[in-house]
């Protein structure tokens, strides 16, 4: 009785009581991280939503609440619909074709010879080169008159292309460059994932008479699924927010052929001074990425095996 009395914090009241109660609350402990996160991401996000409902001129500082006018404008604009279409097409190729390429290269390079190790390092370098440089290099190589690509193609008597300058080839060119740039990082992750699968699992499969194709789909892919899911989610997001390659190579052209939603936001805001519309488009972009990530995550999480 006596002892418990002495240690009864409640009786002291005041600061101790407050402090103890406070410390039981986990949110207090993560408050520093939360506040940073709020200030740097949640606030700008809310601000974007807020601006999306306004007509705003930052120079004069005039702001007018217009409710859904900006959104209505966007959905009635043929350009914006085209931009959405472009973005989905772009995403589809970056995600699926890109992932397939990464997987194939990863499997091919997953050997421990010096040559393979060297190639692994080389293939990773695009990731540490600035997108701007990558874009410039490709613009040089894709130049219709004197570029490396057309020179090689014509040497072999193959049809040449206008690459990023042609209305029908610009999108393909931009996709190519984006995939090329992100391949190294993905390959590296896939190789790390493959190395995480122990040899004896494959030996057990061989003893189980499993053919290589069967082993690939029933053993390798499931055991690689956490890596693949991570790549899928990050690639979807990066496809939606792709900007620098577009800005450098095509400026969304020709005739909006490569205009993607992130670039469109930039165009509306910085070039046409339509901040309200820009932010409305950004909100739509946000809804897209959030939904797709959520779908990815919840739908695939059940099928993904985490060790």
């Amino acid at each position, binding site marked *: 009785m006596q002892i418990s009395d002495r240690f009864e914090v409640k009786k002291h009241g005041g600061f101790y009581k407050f402090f103890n109660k406070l410390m039981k609350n986990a949110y207090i402990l993560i408050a520093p991280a939360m506040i940073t996160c709020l200030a740097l991401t949640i606030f700008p996000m809310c601000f974007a939503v807020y601006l999306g409902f306004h007509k705003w001129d930052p120079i004069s500082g005039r702001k007018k609440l217009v409710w859904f006018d900006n959104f209505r404008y966007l959905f009635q604009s043929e350009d914006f619909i085209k931009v959405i279409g472009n973005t989905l097409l772009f995403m589809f190729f970056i995600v699926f074709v890109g992932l397939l390429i990464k997987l194939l290269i990863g499997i091919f390079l997953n050997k421990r010879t010096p040559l393979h190790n060297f190639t692994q390092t080389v293939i990773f370098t695009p990731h540490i080169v600035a997108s701007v440089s990558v874009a410039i290099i490709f613009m040089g190589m894709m130049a219709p008159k004197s570029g490396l690509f057309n020179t090689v193609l014509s040497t072999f008597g193959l049809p040449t292309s206008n690459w990023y300058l042609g209305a029908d080839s610009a999108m393909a060119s931009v996709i190519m460059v984006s995939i090329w740039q992100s391949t190294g990082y993905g390959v590296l992750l896939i190789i790390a994932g493959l190395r995480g699968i122990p040899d004896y699992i494959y030996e*057990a499969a061989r003893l189980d008479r499993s053919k290589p194709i069967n082993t690939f789909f029933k053993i390798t892919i499931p055991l690689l699924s956490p890596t693949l899911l991570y790549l899928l989610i990050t690639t979807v997001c990066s496809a939606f927010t792709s900007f620098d390659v577009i800005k450098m190579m095509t400026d969304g052209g020709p005739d909006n052929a490569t205009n993607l939603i992130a670039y469109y936001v930039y165009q509306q805001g910085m070039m046409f001074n339509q901040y309200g519309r820009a932010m409305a488009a950004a909100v739509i972009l946000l809804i897209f990425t959030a939904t797709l990530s959520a779908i990815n995550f919840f739908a695939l999480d059940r099928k993904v095996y985490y060790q």
Partner: protein
Amino acid sequence: MLINLSNIKKVYPGSKDPVIEGLNLAIKEGSFTVLLGPSGCGKTTLLRMIAGLESVTGGSISLEGENITNMEPGDRNLAMVFQNYAIYPHMTVKGNIEFGLKNYQMTKQQREERIKLVMELTGLTGFENRMPNQLSGGQRQRVALARAISKSPKAFLMDEPLSNLDAKLRNQMRSELIQLYNKMGTTFIYVTHDQTEALTMATDIVVMKDGKIMQYDTPENVYSNPANVFVAQFIGDPGMDVFQTTDDQFIGFKPRALTTEPVAEGVSFDANLLTTEYLGYDYQMTFEVPGKGTLVMRNKKKMTSGEAYRLSVPLEDLYYFDRDQNRCEPFPITGLKEVFHADK
């Protein structure tokens, strides 16, 4: 003979020296053959070559007379139980077993029946839908066993299957394995470096050293009739004490054969007791034989350290080895030069 290994040679890529060379071994049908030897002697290598997981550099392997040296592992009709179980972590217990069965010509119903049977046999009934990470080490071991049994192979290959289990579970699984063996009558080829496991389970023991077979015999013979100094010192807990005689032959005796009583016929020598260890059933004494080395004695009587004793071995407890350390006929002992003990 079920499996015949002839003139087997193995050189790992990247290294010059063979791990195994000129090895011949015939494994009897229905036997429980244990490959026993110190770490690094090539037991795993040999087993993996039989399984087909490791290429054979030279020589040939045949199974029931058919040459399987270069056959795919899955086509050999052998099942393997790995040391770390190697069960598929993303499949249920049932899935683990069914994965292999699907590659055999079997109907769904046949598979279900087979799975039910092996589940009962390994005591896994009720665990069919568990994931491997929801199982204990012993249960995972059973899954690996069930998977092996389900294919009704011509032989089971097991590489230290019990070494990841704690002592108690190991004893239990050991007796379950023996029961399984008795029930099925299939050939077992079992790798271990634990001689207790070898002596208790085997019908035949292959004692190996540096990729060579030192003795291939019954557990009783390996224990009581060692073919050479290596086996004499390797088998038994502890192994034999071995003296080199002054004409470079060897005599050996079991630590339990040593006595402080005078013997009518035998060898006797003076020794100082260094340490006494209590082992429960009896004591283990380590002696120094002045100028010749140390040896070990086992006795029920406790002896005080630091004192000098006169130790003797009766003649009938002596083992004789020739200059090449192979077992030989008794010879007159000229004098004792040096003593070897395996632990040293």
